[in-house]
Structures are given as C-alpha cells and as structure tokens.
C-alpha cells in the first residue's frame, strides 16, 4: 500500500509541478526517487509535525496541492490543532497522509499504534477521510485526491499487504465497493483489514452463513446509500476495522442505523478501547485482539446466536 502510494504520488508530481510533498523526516529509502526526480516539490520538515502541518497549510494557501507524510499518529494527533485550524478551517489543499494505520507497526509499541485516528479525523469538519483496503483501492483514492485535492486525511497500512482487487478500480469520492453479493449478512470493512474480512466471510460460509463483503475506502464522505440499502437488505451488518471501537466505521454505521425506524442489527468488530502493551507483529496483535479471520467469524456467529435468543424472548 505504501509502495503504491509513492508510485502514484511520483506519477502525479511529475505530471503536475504544483504538487508538493512534505515529510516529517519519514520515508528513508522510499522517497528517494521523488526527491531526485522532483526536487523542487519535496521538503523534509524535520521531526516537527506542528510546523510541518502549518507549513503545508501556508504552501497550499499560496497555491500548491500539498501532501504531508509521517508515521501513525505523528501527522495527525501530534499536530491535530494545525489540521483543524490551519488546514480544515481554511479549506487548505492539504492531504495528511499517515503510514502504518492500525497495528501495522505492531511491535514498535503503543506510541506507534494508530488506533483512534479515524475517529478523530472524522470529527473534523470539511476533512475527507480515506482508509483504502489494498493497493488497488489506494490508487483509486489517490486518483481522486490528486484530481480534487484536500483537505483530506489518507490512512495507509504498510508495504506489502495482500492485493485484494485483481484489477484496477475506479471510484468516486465517498463510494464503497461490493466485493461479494447475494448473501445473508454483510461485512463492512475499512482499511487494510479488508483481506481478513474476506477470509472471515469464507469461514462464515463454512459455518453456513453466507456473508457479503463491502469495502469502505472512504469514511468521509460515507456511502450512505450503500449503508441505507444494506440496512433494508440484510438482517445483520457487521463492521470490521483495525481501529478502536469508538468513533470509526462501526460508530459511523451505528449513527446511521440508529436514526432509521427499522434497520439491521449491528455487530461491531474492532479494537477494544484500551491501550495494548502487548508486544507482537501486526498479525499477532490482530489475533490477540480478535481481529484475525477466525476471531471475527467466532464473534459474528456468537453475536448472531445471542441476537436470535433475544429475538425469541421478545416474541
């Protein structure tokens, strides 16, 4: 996902001298080509995210389209007010890019777990929020960001995630993507956990539950039509995200369902709202926190069982 981002950014920067990349001293070995081919469009702001983001707002207000870049929480939480006041309030054409969404940098520890970013970015008015599910979705989102600009937040995973979409995809801003259709329930996924959601759907099928899968590379704008449609079509919607259960995709969907007179029941699969001090790589931590395919499947089946019991009590 990271590699695809840089490939697309390089292509866009070469085509448009108005695109500027500002890094917070992150990208050793991966930004070299951009730096070499587009030297006037690259600046390393150093380990100073507040300045990086205010700087980006200034560069944008003077006419450029600016991408800021750093790891996990550094380009978001460290300079949250610069994003809110300088970028979003001024509609500055800045795209804040975080690499290492969720537990990508698992073993680096809690400081490097970006697990509240979607909630916090989603709360800022006027800031588009994207969390693509694989390299193909990254390209689709990047095509939009390069064409239409910021203010926006782009959450990337890491390098080398599995490719889910076999062919390139095209996407309007805010559009979600159906990967499997015709089933009994639906899994909504956002970000790089998409592949696990698909594998969970396979396991659910083995257990007799046909689960559709829909990916949400955009959290803001959110595909309200798809959510509304799903709320009528399926008795159960499951959200899957590598993010705190507070404020992410699950919350966004819950907010919509709660205001509908009749809707599907919702199962939110997400990280518990607790810091993880557990050491391990992304796969290990996903498993430990119930986000591996087997745990997702187990949680869905268990909750469906509980829901059935509750329903029969009501009758």
């Amino acid at each position: 996902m990271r590699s695809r981002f840089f490939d697309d950014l390089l292509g866009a920067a070469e085509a448009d001298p108005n695109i500027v990349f500002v890094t917070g001293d992150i990208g050793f070995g991966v930004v070299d080509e951009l730096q070499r081919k587009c030297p006037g469009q690259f600046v390393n702001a150093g380990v100073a995210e507040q300045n990086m983001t205010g700087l980006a707002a200034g560069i944008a207000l003077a006419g450029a389209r600016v991408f800021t870049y750093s790891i996990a929480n550094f380009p978001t939480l460290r300079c949250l007010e610069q994003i809110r006041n300088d970028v979003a309030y001024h509609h500055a054409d800045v795209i804040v890019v975080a690499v290492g969404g969720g537990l990508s940098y698992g073993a680096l520890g809690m400081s490097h777990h970006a697990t509240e970013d979607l909630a916090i970015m989603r709360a800022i008015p006027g800031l588009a929020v994207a969390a693509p599910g694989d390299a193909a979705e990254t390209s689709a989102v990047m095509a939009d960001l390069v064409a239409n600009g910021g203010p926006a937040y782009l959450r990337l995973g890491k390098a080398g995630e599995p490719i889910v979409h076999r062919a390139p995809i095209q996407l309007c801003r805010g559009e979600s993507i159906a990967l499997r259709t015709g089933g009994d329930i639906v899994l909504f996924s956002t970000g790089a956990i998409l592949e696990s959601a698909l594998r969970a759907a396979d396991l659910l099928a083995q257990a007799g539950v046909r689960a559709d899968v829909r990916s949400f590379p955009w959290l803001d704008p959110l595909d309200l039509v798809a959510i509304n449609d799903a709320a009528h079509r399926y008795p159960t919607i499951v959200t899957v995200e590598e993010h705190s259960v507070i404020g992410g995709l699950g919350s966004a969907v819950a907010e919509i369902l709660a205001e509908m007179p009749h809707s599907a029941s919702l199962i939110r699969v997400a990280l518990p709202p607790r810091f993880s001090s557990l050491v391990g790589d992304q796969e290990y931590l996903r498993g430990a926190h119930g986000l591996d395919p087997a745990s997702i499947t187990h949680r869905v089946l268990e909750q469906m069982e509980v829901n059935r019991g509750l329903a029969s009590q009501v009758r």
Partner: protein
Amino acid sequence: MTSDDLARAVRRHVLRMTNSGRSSHVGSALSCADLLAVLYAEILDIDPAHPDKPDRDRFIMSKGHAGAALYAVLAETGFFDTRLLAQHYRNGSFLSGHVSHVGIPGVEFSTGSLGHGLPVGAGLAWQARRMRKTWLTYVLLGDGECDEGSVWESAMFAAHHRLTNLVALVDWNGLQSMATTEETLALEPFADKWRSFGWEVDEIDGHDHAQIRKAVQPGQERPKVVLARTVKGKGVSFMENQVLWHYRPPDDLELAGAMSEVAP
C-alpha cells in the same frame, strides 16, 4: 493617512470595541497598534479593492487575541466599513474576539490559538520563493506566544531554508496573561535565542514609527525578526504595563478617560 494618524484611529477603535463588546485583550491590541499602523500605512503591498490579488504581500496576525486591532486597521485602510467595527464580539457578527477570516475582507489567516502563524508564514514564504514570486510574508507574534514550541520549530525551518522573504515581528511588551514574561517562562536572552536559531535580529522601540519602518525590511541572507519593545496598553496611562488590562474591558467611565488620552 499617515501611520501616526492610523495608529491613533486604531487605538480609538480598539477602546470603543472592547468597551461596547465587553471583550478582552485591550492591552495586547494597544501594544501592537503602531506596528500594524506602519505595516498597513506604508509597507504592505495590498489593495483594499482587491483583497485577494495574487501578488499581494501576506500578513498573518499570529497573536490572534489582538483581533480588535487587526479589524480596526483593516477597516481604517478601506477593506470594510468602519461602522461594522461596532459589531465586534456581538451575537451574529463575524468579528470574533480572535482573528477569523470568514466573511471579513483582508484577513489573510485565522488565528487565536498561539504558535500557528509562523509555520504558516514559513509555508507561504517557501512556496512564494519556489514559484519565484516577489511578494513578502509578515507575521506578527506576541512575546508570550513564543512559549509555544511550534514557533521554534518554524524558526528552525525558516532559517534552514534561508527564507529571506519572511519577516517576523514580535510585540515584545513583556507581559503575558498572568505576569511578566520573565516571571512566567523567561524569554531572555531573547535576541540571542533568535540569532542562535539563524535569524537576522533587529531590536527596536515598537512605538517609534521611523524605527519600525526601517526594521521591517527583509533580511539579506536570513529571515528577519523584529523584536519590537512595546508597552502593553500603550497610549492609555492607566492601562500601561498593567497585567489587569490583558483581560479587562474598559467600562464607560474608563473609556471616556482613555479616549481623552488618545486624541484623534
């Protein structure tokens, strides 16, 4: 209008605005009135008839709590009707206590949270140089604002990139919201700090228009900072150098006394 006339007009507006709006920061607004007056009367290449003209100089009021002074100078120089100043701080108005650009011609950037202006100014200057534009960026900071780490992040950046098209001014009145700067979080040796960060430093009397005029010229090889020694509450004897007037608005009696000291 001469810069002296403009400074007096700004001070009179600020006193009326803080009185009628029951709004705060009158001392901060009075201390930077001369800096604003010289910039807006003589230095900035701006056009009230075309506030968004692309090659204008950029001015960022980073000490956004002195918004009343910025609104006053903009109105007096023709960006909008001075009668609108009476709306300051009122329900339904656009003229908030801290600087906001929405709906107000001439306001380059919204501030109010300290430590935001210089990074943005550095970005404007960096992009201007990249695009080979000759317009300049000016940022006015408060001295207490220099407690913010982001000020020094951008100070490092601007010096590293030798942004000679960036001029920072510090309204160095020596008082912040509770006590003196030296009692709060010592700035001294302030000029040495800026020099060691790679800036060209001018230390001036921030109420002497001739000195201001000369000092705000951009640096030759490095970004310029003008450390303007000022008096908080300048122009109104009972407000001068009093921490009390950071937050307190003048009541009607105090306004009458103050206005008699700042004759038109």
